[in-house]
């Protein structure tokens, strides 16, 4: 059903890279597999070798260091991240985004890194990680590369990763004191669904900077220019944010929604997001 391929399960990055290089474009990394296997079944991708990476210790890291920087390994299932109390406390928007993905069962397999590398314009992890200023670490025999997420997405389902690069982990910089983060996703129903529109944001009262990112409204997820809130009223900030989104978005009509609906609803999400982030005495 999935085609015919071999499967290897290396225990080191070097070994994984070697296998991938040998097979070239007919090999693929298998982490959660929830996008890949669906593509294989549909014949959208054909592979000769799957390189399972869940046994590589380096890719299983999920920790916060003393400075507050968060590392999410490429093989860490979403549920593991969601259930980590420390992350729920400091990065609620990240958890909201992860919780919105698919079903409980799929979240035991799917990974944040996988979601990003699949690079759907509607990738649910992208907006919040963009707003958080996260970077993706990519490993190849030529060395390690730190890719700011804002450079990762180059087109619909296209990243800037080279064929011999393996994404190994996400690094989310230490949050500013009291940083608030939120994610909102418009779906067709309350049950599991892809995003019709999505928006994420962070706001640090200490710096007064509002960062917004939007998804499912352009060929790639978009990070908008940061907004200095200063003394502006909430309504003024909302208006500024909405204008920025309306300028940046290039929505299409597809099976999920029309461009008209996306144009109508994304500003609503952004306004609600900003209101929540700027709320007086709001929690992180």
């Amino acid at each position: 059903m999935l085609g015919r391929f071999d499967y290897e399960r290396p225990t080191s990055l070097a070994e994984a890279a070697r296998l991938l290089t040998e097979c070239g474009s007919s090999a693929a990394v298998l982490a959660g597999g929830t996008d890949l296997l669906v593509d294989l079944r549909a014949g959208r991708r054909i592979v000769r070798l799957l390189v399972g990476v869940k046994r590589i210790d380096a890719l299983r890291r999920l920790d916060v260091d003393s400075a507050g920087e968060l590392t999410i390994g490429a093989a860490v299932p979403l549920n593991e991240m969601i259930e980590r109390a420390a992350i729920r406390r400091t990065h609620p928007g990240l958890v909201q985004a992860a919780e919105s993905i698919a079903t409980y069962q799929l979240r035991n397999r799917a990974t944040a890194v996988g979601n990003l590398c699949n690079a759907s314009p509607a990738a649910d992890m992208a907006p919040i990680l963009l707003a958080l200023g996260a970077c993706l670490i990519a490993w190849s025999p030529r060395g390690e590369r730190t890719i700011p997420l804002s450079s990762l997405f180059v087109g619909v389902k296209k990243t800037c990763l080279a064929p011999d690069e393996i994404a190994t982990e996400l690094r989310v910089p230490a949050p500013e004191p009291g940083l608030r983060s939120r994610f909102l996703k418009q779906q067709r129903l309350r049950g599991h669904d892809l995003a019709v529109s999505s928006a994420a944001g962070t706001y640090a009262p200490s710096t007064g900077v509002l960062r917004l990112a939007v998804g499912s409204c352009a060929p790639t997820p978009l990070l908008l220019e940061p907004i200095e809130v200063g003394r502006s009223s909430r309504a003024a900030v909302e208006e500024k944010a909405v204008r920025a989104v309306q300028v940046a978005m290039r929505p299409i009509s597809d099976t999920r929604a029309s461009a008209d609906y996306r144009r109508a609803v994304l500003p609503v999400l952004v306004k609600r997001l900003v209101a929540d982030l700027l709320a007086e005495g709001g929690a992180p």
Partner: protein
Amino acid sequence: MTRELRVVGTSVPRDDAIDKVTGAARYTTDLALPGMLHATILTSPHASARIVGVDLTDARSVPGVRAVLAGSDLDVRLGLYLRDKRILARDVVRYQGEPVAAVAADTLDVAREACRRIRVEYEELPAVFDPRDAMAAGAPLVHPDLAGYDHMRGVFFPRPGTNVAHHQKIRKGDAPASLAAADVRLEASFYNPPVQHVPMETHASIAQALPEDRVEIWTSSQSPYTVRHLLSVCLGLPHAAIRVHVPYVGGGFGGKAGLGLEPLATVLSRAAGGRPVLVSATREEEFNTMPSRQGLHSTIKIGSTCDGRITALEATYVWDAGAYADYGVNVGRAAAYSGAGPYAIEHCSIDSYVVYTNKVYGTAYRGFGHLEVLWGIERVMDQMARKLGLDPAEFRRRNLLKEGDTTITGEPFTAGHGKPVECLDAVAKAIGWGRPPAAASDPRKVRGKGIAMLHKAPAMPTYTSCAVVIKLDEDGAADVLVSGVDYGQGTYTVLRQIAAEELCLPIGKVHITWECDTALTPYDWQTVASRFSYMGGNAVIEAAADCLRQVRAVAAQALGVAPETIVCEDELAFPAAEPGRAIAYKDLALGYTFPNGNAIGGPIIGHGRFIATGLTHLNPETGQGRPAQFWTYGAHAVEIEVDTETGEIEILHIATAVDAGKVLNPLSCTGQVIGGVVQGLGSTLHEGFQFDDKGQLLNPSFVDYKIPTAKDLPRRMTPIFLENPQPGGPYGARGVAEHPMISVPSAIGNALADALGIDYTVLPLSPERVLLGIQKKDKTP
């Protein structure tokens, strides 16, 4: 109905649940026969094309392939009411997704590999997708040879030279004149897109061609005898040459009511030298190849007096049958005779057209056209009420059928029909109708209330019948044999309860044979139309009486008394005046043996049957006649909350009343209501096929075809049952299986009109549709 019932009317849990919760229940794809092959289907990428050539040579050369077939190999025509279909497309394809060729091989992977190597050359032809376009002069003909097709004469009227597979007319009184003269008139048009049943188990069939032109079939089906009959007709075999087994079935909802993959499995097995062949639809094939629920365009005009009495109703229903007529013609027929709603209307004119288009074909679906028709009818009722300045519930009260009225087919409405007004009152009370909704918690949200009536009778042939056999075991337990299928609705448990009640057996000693087998279990028409509990129940009562007659006869002879003096109680038979001289059923079940060794009687086997009574064909010009064995009425009332910025609807409370006549099992009746309401919510809020301008189905999977999940439930659902008895129903019961789904969209559409002042006419009421409607209204001066 005043005798005290012991087990009928109680919430006996189903015993099949045990097989299902342990994984022991075997569905068709859980079966494996020795040497069984696996099949795949090659489908058409085009909505309308001529098949120029099919090259199977490469496919046949793949090792492990045992049969490859294309339409040109098979000269067989299928059809339930109109024989317009092939097993595999021959000469032309009529919808994207239509089966063109098939492979049977040792494994599914081999079959798929071979399928990939089949070469088909197509020449695209003009296609038509909207049934209204298909009715216009000069439209491409989906079936140019319509004139030559066999069909059920006197009941269905295809129009050769057009795309009209059937036209049903209702003519009562003089609707055009009455409308013209009405105090107040209203006209509106509505649309239901095609949707899919989405049973959790997709279609699957196994067939084994046996020597001497016989075939044995195991299939996920609602109707083993219909499968047998239709195969008999299309293959030219006697009925006894075809044996159909139905194991556990994972949901049907009408999609498995007729022929599915059985013919294909049969011809593949023949071509594979008699090896059994399993054909099982992938989920994508279930959406794109297997049949759907017809779409409907409706236009309704009603006329009323100023004080709210409807005087006339005119409706035009244009059904999108898709590429083949299947059940679609009967849906068009049934929807016509029900097509004015449960109201007393003196002048009525309905034209119901079933029209071919180049899309996946429609079949029976829970509600059989009534959800689609009542979407329009119940919305128009509300619109007229508003126009008259009347409360919508009150407007309905003034027009609902009451004793002494006649329906639009001239059928008198009697006390035995039940009480639609009571259903209306019950749901109105449950949601506090008449009181405006409480304020929404959020200023961006608006609340509204809506109400809608529902009605349906079984849409079935005038001669529909059912037979039941009950045999007693050595230990005095009873086995009930039926060929109706329990595909989740719980009828088998109800039939066990009835048998236990009538036979004076504890429920634990009444068993029902789970698998249907046309060689062994007696005839049942089809498990559709909400008629199985009614007809099967009556047949069980008769069969049980037959068993007890035999029990009494043998006991009487054994005891030397007259049979009329024997009573049966608690598995014992004894003379009423001498309870001490009891003989246990177990000592009679296989005959009675005297102490000296003489034996009398024999194995006790009772049979019962039921045939529809008093039904008539409908007059082809006027639709007058008696199509309904019984009617079931009901109502929904709903309170919703709408997010005016995103268009999302939340159902706060939905109350559903059904006049069940007698609730045979509260647990399963409640299950039918909750399940039906949620399935109705799917049609209302989320579901609909989307096609591009070349007729390609754009959402053939769960990624983009969404059904309700556990997160999509109303905050509160209130099922309410009325028990106004149905004469002729077992214990006064009527069918209730389809009804809870009907009119759910109408109630919610009415609530939206209340909340927003907007009349939505197209389903589904997705957030997008709702929001764009709000925006349009805001822009209109």
